[in-house]
């Protein structure tokens, strides 16, 4: 079940305040009450303003592949935090938690991408 997509509503924690920097109101595009946790394989990282996007394949328990796209922080903020367009690459296994788009497409907003063993691969928060 490790790669099973799970949607958890009304969960708290990762989505506090400053962790979700955005140039516009996230409420305009994402449902703040619908959180999604994804484990998948990177197919592309699009490192462009105003926000980078990661594209990933997520396998369901039955083996079907769902294609997801998730909006990240701004490349500027992530580069200042020490990350870059080579921080993740096609084929990498990643884990992320995000907010689901209101149109219920396979689109989410996240600010942190981790490896399966918990290392932070992309973030706009400076490591302290």
């Amino acid at each position: 079940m490790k790669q099973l997509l799970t949607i958890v509503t009304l969960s708290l924690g990762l989505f506090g305040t400053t962790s979700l920097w955005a140039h516009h109101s996230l409420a305009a595009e994402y449902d703040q009450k619908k959180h999604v946790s994804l484990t998948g394989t990177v197919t592309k990282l699009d490192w462009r303003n105003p926000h980078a996007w990661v594209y990933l394949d997520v396998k369901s328990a039955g083996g079907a592949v769902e294609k997801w796209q998730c909006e990240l922080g701004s490349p500027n903020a992530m580069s200042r935090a020490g990350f870059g367009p080579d921080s993740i690459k096609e084929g990498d296994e990643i884990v992320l938690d995000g907010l689901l788009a209101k149109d219920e497409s396979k689109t989410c907003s996240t600010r942190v991408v981790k490896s399966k063993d918990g290392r932070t691969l992309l973030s706009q928060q400076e490591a302290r």
Partner: protein
Amino acid sequence: MSYRLLLIAALSLACAGLAAAQPPSAPAAPSGARGGYKPPEGPAPKTPWGKPDLNGVWQRPYVPDIERGLGPLPFTEWGKAQWASYKPEEGDYTGSCLPFGHVRSMNSPDPIQILETPTHLAFLYEQNSWFKVFPIDGRPTSKKVPTWFGESVGHWDGDTLVVETANFNGLTRLDTVGHPHSDQLRVTERFTRTDAGHLAYQVTLDDPKTYTKPLTSNRTFTLRTDWEILEYSCEENNKGLIEGRIKTPKYENSGK
């Protein structure tokens, strides 16, 4: 003089001033250095022309919701109605890459660069690569058309630069969550270089149409000698707008 020429002139002067004013003990760290940054120490520097030196790239606290620092906002009935009716999903203008306006730009998480000349100050907002240039030598205002960023003039009050801004078009919001203001908003900002690494910033928002009393916030900006302002093209890959998840706002309920 056009804004572009003015900006080039300001940049040249400010870079010269910055180089002269920065303490030699503050070497620039590599861009993108992770953690551990320490701002320069020492007394507040002066420009070659003897004024407090405000030049530099400044890291500022992100203020997505002004109410968090100010407590419950003193809305007028008009302001309360504006706030109650705001629905970002029906068009947060910044999602469409329309100008943030000065207050929301100063509340944004992205850094600004300040360029100072004897006669003008420039804010280079990284947020969407906007800028603002205005006189600080006490000359009267001359522009009459309301704008997104308002019309600013500055003057020195001792070692503090006081910037007063008005003539807003009333179409912007104060912060990320969307607190309202009207075209009657007047903003007073006080910039005081307290030491080599810091800038004290006080902002007062006076908008009697929206709030029953002025709102004042005090913050500290940190000089980032290891940062440069980067390009920020909001339009380039704004997939939310391109793919129809973000709506362009309608302005029938504007601040006018």
